[in-house]
């Protein structure tokens, strides 16, 4: 096991007045692809918001590359090399495709990803670079959201429900493209409700249930019945 790049220790987090995470322990190794699964309301979104700094957490609960990031603001976390493809894409509606991608480069981090590299990965975006992001199809919008996250040259990238609301053929295309995206030693966390998709691209999986880790295992060996139990909480 390589040195963990992200380490969560006893992470507690609140969603409004409601406690959504209870003492979550998780880690992501350098270059590892991790899947996080769980039903609606299990705490997946709160976990993403905690890691990215949209929710601040207590000291020592989240460490990224050995540095405590629990108390940092979202923009400061982004500068440390952590990016997210948010649930529902959430592109900037008044920006063109190209402008959305350029905003992703705001942190000024150096690396292999640039406008040219993203256009090479998704050639359709180059054709449609000047149109408003809202004029794209759902799948193309997802490409922009992925490209936007890559533009910051992150060391860890979070994919939050990237298959949500997309046609199966589009989901297949995006998952087929993932290995090429995540290569080059980048680590990734994939949050999904589609369990088989999540398992197919990851090496390890955590299942969340009511704000607690209910299962941890290797994606290719963990028994399906254990997952159902951890997912639904049926004994």
């Amino acid at each position, binding site marked *: 096991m390589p040195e963990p790049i992200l380490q969560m220790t006893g992470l507690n987090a609140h969603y409004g007045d409601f406690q959504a995470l209870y003492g979550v322990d998780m880690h992501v190794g350098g270059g590892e692809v991790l899947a996080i699964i769980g039903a609606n309301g299990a705490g997946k979104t709160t976990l993403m918001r905690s890691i990215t700094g949209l929710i601040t957490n207590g000291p020592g609960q989240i460490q990224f590359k050995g540095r405590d990031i629990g108390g940092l603001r979202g*923009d400061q976390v982004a500068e440390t090399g952590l990016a997210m493809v948010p649930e529902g894409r959430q592109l*900037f509606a008044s920006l063109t495709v190209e402008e959305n991608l350029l*905003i992703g480069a705001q942190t000024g981090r150096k690396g292999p990803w640039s406008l040219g590299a993203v256009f090479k990965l998704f050639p359709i975006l180059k054709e449609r670079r000047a149109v408003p992001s809202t004029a794209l199809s759902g799948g193309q919008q997802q490409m922009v959201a992925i490209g936007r996250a890559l533009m910051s040259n992150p060391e860890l990238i979070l994919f939050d429900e990237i298959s949500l609301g997309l046609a199966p053929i589009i989901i297949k295309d995006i998952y087929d493209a993932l290995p090429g995206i995540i290569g080059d030693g980048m680590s990734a966390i994939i949050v999904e409700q589609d369990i088989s998709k999540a398992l197919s691209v990851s090496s390890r999986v955590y299942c969340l249930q009511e704000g607690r880790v209910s299962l941890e295992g290797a994606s290719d060996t963990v028994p399906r019945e254990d997952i159902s139990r951890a997912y639904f909480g049926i004994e």
Partner: protein
Amino acid sequence: MEWLNALVQGTLLGGLYALFAAGLSLIFGVMRLVNIAHGDLIVLAAYLGLTVTSAIGLHPVVAMVLVVPAMAMIGYALQRGLLNQTLGDDLLPPLLVTFGLSVILQNGLLEVYSADPQKLSAPVLETASLPLGPITVGVLPVLTFAIAVAVIWGLQWTFYKTALGRAFRAVSDNQDIAQLMGLNKRHIFGLAMALALAVTAVAGILLGLRTSFDPASGGGRLIFGFEAVIIGGLGNLWGTLAGGVILGVAQTIGAKIDPGWQVLSGHIAFLVILAIRPQGLFPRMSG
């Protein structure tokens, strides 16, 4: 011919109203903040212009070189130190805080500059005129209008062609996601307020050149600014210029009918447009 004159003079006056309105429009567009103290900030800029011209002896137009950056710095400090803390899902806290700021500014100006009406003087510029076909127009109103067009063009360019404008629009669209892209929204809001008050500084100096002002003049400027924004349609800067022109023309035509009707007819024009097209004449941003 007198009517044509009123039309032209009103159009030129509209440039000044558009300058009152541009900062208001920008702030609302970027951070959904309705700045009740905007008019008083215009008057503050006029007084700063007065101080600079009387202390250093600069021409008021040249004084902009000092007043514009000074107001921009005040704007950034005001936003970071006070207004950012009021922003959230509720529109009311910033409204109340800027209302309080307005009271503080008016009384502060009264304390420092007294209640005597003041004016920025530029002897040659104030009286110079140009023949324009059958009518004659003042150089100052023409200059004001030209500056208004240049400022609005500049704001439009900043919004749609620069990285700063991209950041303004991104933060306006979705604050959380913009934060994830490494944009510190507090800083971006500070820059937006700095830009808005830089425009306000230009408006304040041109106001002081055109007419006399006193510490209580801000309220009226705020109303004219608001009316220009609403007539033009929220979030459209060229629409704001059109709104200012409509307001200015309505006022000069009203004054032509009866001098007492000047301000009233502007408000009537505003109410009519609000009743017919509540979304304004040119709603939404256009790239």
